């Protein structure tokens, strides 16, 4: 027979003002099996907790119900108190009579009656609670950082400096990410590469960091503290140990007209190339899709000129396996390209370019060595129109969100243009100027007031070419939506920042959720901004949402500190709210029939096959088994299982069934006995 204690909290006036707590405690006392029922002003206070502990000891309670606030607030408090008094903490549950009752209803009988109902439901649940033991799992103290942009670099360095091993995986041949492509950075106009490259070198040299460039994640399995990852190192066609990075191969390569990814298509590169002079590692890669040898079967010029015989045409992809304990996703973002803007002629007119291309034009290491020359004929453009929100904040285009970085970089672009082309006209079409950030607003004002950038508040409807000019057709909403037409020499689109290519596939591989725009989802928009809903996987940088450099760096350090906290323990404790497949005596062994329809429903691949055999090894039946390390306790399998062979600890069929029954049964408790 159960011996349940009920403790009703007044929470000062918070509950007491609308709910008659004494009456609730008195009603609870009448429920069969309740041997102790009291009310008190502050149950969560030390005296309150002591009341619970004493009652557990004195009355030998087998269950505790605290009628108070939301279990999301104080469940850990009361469970700990129970544990201290020698009661299994999972025999304690809370009835939420504050958030779900006293705060949302008027004072009166119906509210008190509801509070009684809520307590009765939880009493019936607790009666069926079973003592559970938290699950302990070991922690592998190696972190995987996916992505070698500024966010990944920061996270990797912070974790490595805390003394933990880091494996960094970068998809492209060099780390550095988008930041390495930028010319100057707002709001200080300091050189992007000058501040980035020392960190890139530090990553390469750090004793705790293993770097895999030109590599991707093949698969990941496991759970927090215990992931197993397979990394595909794509064939670089280079012996990295033999190569000295002298660069002779690139100089001699006859195929030279390939659009350079680093220069956003404005410059060219050879088929064997180092993406940019400060690349880390500073060793080339052969682009097999464009290399004459791979296309036509002859050439091998690079092999001939290589002084160290480092070219390996027959190199194959290599799969590297690693055990890791945590993951930082820092895979970054991309900007929208292609014919997403037919109305702006992007892709059709050479002089309509995107923001990243402008960065390369303005960069001293870029294709024009930092001079602003338009792509079509190399002339200095006399009039440049910058279009902010190209795609962003445009539900008709399917991108409702603000890309956040464009206001600032467009101001920077216009400013750089005015600095470099004296007498040039810079127009910016904008919706709103969003310059929230330290020194950001001042930066925009400087563009307007000191550098004479002309801001036009309105949208551009169309850009078309006429007689060698780009006609920008828009409206000035501050002049009564008057149509404006500007004859420009170059148009720069601040195109929307979007999730990286393959973000969705990666998210599915990692089992993290992602939003409608394929940005990775944080566990809580405010309180868990670097966690994902998958324990042990953290987020840094623009893979979560568009972000500028300072924000990406801050989040990366946040993610690194979370990894550090995780790695500070040798073992993890997890709540035992997991699914279990029942076992029973022969000849049934389990009510599981082995149909495995639950397998597809499990979001965590936690359901495995188990063969039940006789002692001499004869197979009796194959049934489902839940891997307690992988199961997160959603219970979807429980609802799918028609034989009720799977049950969820903490939310068992018996418990929820009893809750429904108890909720609706307002008959006097002793009437039925």
């Amino acid at each position, binding site marked *: 027979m159960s011996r349940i204690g009920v403790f009703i909290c007044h929470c000062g006036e918070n509950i007491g003002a609308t709910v008659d707590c004494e009456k609730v405690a008195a009603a609870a006392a009448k429920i069969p099996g309740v041997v102790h029922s009291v009310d008190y002003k502050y149950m969560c206070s030390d005296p309150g907790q002591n009341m619970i502990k004493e009652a557990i000891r004195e009355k030998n309670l087998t269950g505790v119900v605290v009628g108070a606030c939301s279990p999301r607030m104080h469940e850990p408090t009361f469970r700990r108190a129970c544990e201290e008094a020698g009661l299994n903490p999972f025999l304690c549950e809370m009835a939420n009579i504050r958030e779900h009752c006293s705060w949302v209803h008027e004072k009166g009988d119906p509210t008190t009656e509801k509070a009684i109902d809520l307590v009765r439901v939880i009493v019936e649940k607790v009666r069926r609670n079973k003592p559970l033991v938290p699950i302990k799992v070991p922690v592998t103290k190696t972190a995987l950082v996916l992505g070698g942009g500024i966010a990944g670099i920061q996270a990797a360095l912070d974790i490595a400096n805390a003394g933990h091993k880091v494996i960094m995986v970068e998809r492209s041949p060099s780390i550095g990410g988008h930041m390495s492509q930028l010319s100057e950075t707002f709001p200080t106009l300091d050189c992007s590469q000058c501040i980035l490259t020392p960190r890139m070198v530090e990553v390469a040299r750090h004793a705790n960091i293993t770097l895999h460039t030109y590599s991707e994640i093949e698969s990941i399995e496991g759970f927090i503290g215990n992931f197993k990852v397979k990394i595909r190192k794509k064939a670089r066609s280079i012996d990295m140990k033999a190569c000295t990075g002298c660069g002779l191969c690139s100089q001699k390569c006859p195929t030279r007209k390939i659009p350079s990814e680093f220069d956003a298509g404005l410059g060219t590169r050879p088929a064997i190339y180092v993406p940019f002079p400060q690349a880390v590692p500073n060793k080339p890669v052969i682009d097999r899709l464009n290399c004459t040898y791979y296309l036509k079967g002859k050439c091998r010029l690079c092999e001939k000129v290589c002084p160290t015989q480092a070219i390996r045409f027959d190199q194959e992809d290599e799969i590297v396996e690693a055990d890791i304990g945590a993951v930082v996703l820092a895979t970054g973002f991309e900007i929208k390209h292609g014919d997403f803007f037919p109305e702006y002629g992007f892709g059709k007119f050479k002089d309509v370019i995107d923001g990243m291309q402008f960065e390369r034009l303005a960069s001293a290491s870029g294709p024009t060595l930092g001079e602003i020359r338009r792509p079509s004929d190399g002339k200095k453009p006399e009039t440049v129109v910058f279009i902010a929100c190209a795609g962003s904040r445009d539900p008709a285009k399917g991108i409702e969100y603000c890309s956040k970085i464009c206001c600032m970089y467009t101001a920077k672009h216009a400013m750089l243009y005015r600095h470099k082309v004296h007498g040039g006209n810079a127009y910016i079409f904008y919706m709103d100027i969003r310059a929230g950030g330290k020194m950001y607003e001042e930066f925009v004002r400087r563009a307007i007031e000191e550098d004479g950038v002309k801001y036009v508040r309105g949208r551009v409807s169309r850009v078309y070419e006429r007689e060698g000019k780009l006609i920008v057709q828009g409206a000035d909403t501050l002049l009564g939506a008057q149509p404006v037409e500007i004859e420009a020499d170059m148009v720069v689109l601040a195109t929307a920042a979007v999730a990286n290519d393959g973000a969705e596939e990666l998210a599915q591989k990692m089992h993290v959720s992602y939003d409608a725009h394929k940005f990775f989802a944080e566990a809580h928009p405010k309180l868990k901004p670097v966690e994902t809903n998958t324990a042990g996987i953290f987020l840094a940088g623009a893979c979560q949402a568009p972000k500028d450099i300072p924000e990406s760096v801050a989040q990366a350090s946040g993610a690194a500190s979370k990894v550090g906290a995780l790695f500070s323990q040798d073992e993890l404790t997890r709540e035992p709210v997991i699914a279990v497949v029942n076992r029973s005596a022969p000849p049934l062994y389990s009510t599981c029939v082995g149909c495995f329809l639950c397998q597809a*429903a499990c979001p965590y691949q936690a359901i495995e096959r188990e063969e039940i055999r006789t002692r001499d090894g004869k197979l009796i039946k194959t049934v489902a088994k839940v891997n307690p390390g992988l199961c997160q306790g959603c219970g979807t399998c429980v609802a799918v299982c028609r034989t009720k062979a799977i049950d969820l600890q903490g939310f068992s069929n018996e418990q929820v069934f*009893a809750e429904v029954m108890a909720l609706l049964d307002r008959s006097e408790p002793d009437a039925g006995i």
Partner: protein
Amino acid sequence: MDELRKKARALLEAGEVRVVIGYGGGTGDRARAIFVREPERADELIFDGRCRQNLAIYLTRREVKELGKPAIVATLPALKTVLQLAGEFQIAEGGLVVLAPGADGSLIEFKTFADIEKYLAGAASPIDPAEQAEMDRVRAMSPDERWKYWLGQISRCIKCYACRQACPMCYCPRCTVECNQPQWIPVPSHELGNLEWNVMRAMHLAGRCVDCGDCSRACPVGIPLYLLNRVLIGDIESNFHQRAGMKAEVDYALSTFHPDDRENFIR
């Protein structure tokens, strides 16, 4: 029929199978399931319009399994059942021989599940016009009329579970009605218990039912159970484009999903 008998005899003689699950003559004008284990008894096999029972039900029966590798005489729904059972890991490729006699005396022997899939992809599943008419009639009713209709039907239910016994997909050794912790379905045969049983039966078959109709035929009081099955079959097909028994792998409507599944009732 000769083809079938010849094949059955050959299979048994060669020891390729231990039992042929087929139809034999029953009392009166009925056909019944027979289990032919000796080659000389192959001539007892018949196949004609009377042979409607879905023999795939025996594939999961312990007593039949113990006889050894079976050959099964399969009608169209039985073929679907074979695939569905394979998708639910109850039978394995190579673990049985599937023989589908045609009305014209021809015989198809399916070597692989993939062959059955191919065959079924091109086969039509005709619906009995009288049953369709009943469906249309119930659909046209007002909600209140439908409630009265079904209350009338289920109040006649005696909870004999013949529907369950006749169903080739109800192979669970312990059915949820027998679960008493908690007691999901009340034991007595009153309206509430009958209603809950019938709803549960339909839902447990949602996405799995191959519409053989054996449950309705087995029901001693003639409850049109096929209506419940077909509503779910129709909803699954129109909403999720899935159909049970068409593939030998898991394609279960209730354990798969699409982020763009459409509904019009969630606010």
